[in-house]
């Protein structure tokens, strides 16, 4: 019974932690949209704009990646740890 509760709680927590994926999605979409505008205005600067945009996207992505790491920990590591503590 306790094990089932632990598994369920970890799964729900993993699902909730992936809400962190919303932010980077919006942010990266905005950044890419702005980059498209910049390229449309100045097509000769395409190379610089693209590499800067990719770098910015990678940095904006890190919060989403933190959420993913927490979710992976909750699914693969946390249940074993908590069940081990049950004794």
């Amino acid at each position, binding site marked *: 019974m306790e094990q089932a509760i632990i598994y369920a709680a970890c799964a729900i927590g993993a699902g909730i932690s992936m809400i962190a994926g919303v932010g980077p999605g919006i942010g990266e979409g905005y950044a890419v949209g702005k980059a498209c505008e910049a390229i449309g205005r100045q097509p000769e600067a395409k190379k610089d704009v693209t*590499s800067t945009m*990719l*770098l910015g996207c*990678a940095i904006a*992505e890190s919060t989403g*990646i933190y959420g993913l*790491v927490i979710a992976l920990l909750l699914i693969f590591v946390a249940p074993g740890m908590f069940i081990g503590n049950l004794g």
Partner: protein
Amino acid sequence: MKVEITGAKIFFTIPYLNIPITETLVNAWIVMALLVAACIWMTKGMKVRANTKKQHLAEFLVNTVNKWVLDNMGERYAKSSFPPFIAALFAFSACSSLLGLFGLYPPTAALSTTLGWSIMVYVMITYTNIRTNKLSGYLKGLTEPVALLTPLNIISEVSTPVSMAFRHFGNIASGQVVSALLYGALLMLNNALFGWLPGALGQILTTIPIAQIGIPAILSIYFDLFSSIMQAFIFCMLTMNYISAAGQTD
């Protein structure tokens, strides 16, 4: 049906020292051996005027990396021993992630590999910072703009290597997890489609998973090819940006 998502397998443990030899370690050494072999092969029998394909390729690679470092960090670093470091980092990272294409466990899908690289880069950043601004300047930089923000500055110092490592690890590992889940789902679909067929026909069609053909390849283009090259590029780009920012006097 069973979907197996595991970390690196432990092959054996060195006795007394208690060091586990994992798939990560073995595959990383395979990649290193391949890269060293490629370097030796390409630089063997070089001439002043390039007349072989491999020498043209080697010169192209070296020139590309030199120009890349020159564009991002300026003249001083492009002349130093920095481009070979970036080239090695990029090649190691990209080739490790690309191992996933061959069905091997990519070393970058383990946090220990990427955390090792990012700690190495962090040491280089801090060393450059201390060498440029002296120790007093570095410590003073932590208390800016007001002394009250020192704890937050220390947290942001620590978060640099952590975020670099997690970004690389998360992208590659999530690709592995999503691919494994997709394979499991397609196996279930295959069983649902053909499982009801009577007799030997149904048995043959369920043992050969036909639904798994083709569809994972499309996902693999993103997760294995695009993502691994992209993450190697971003890791090197961030390394260069951080180090050149640390090398600037204010």
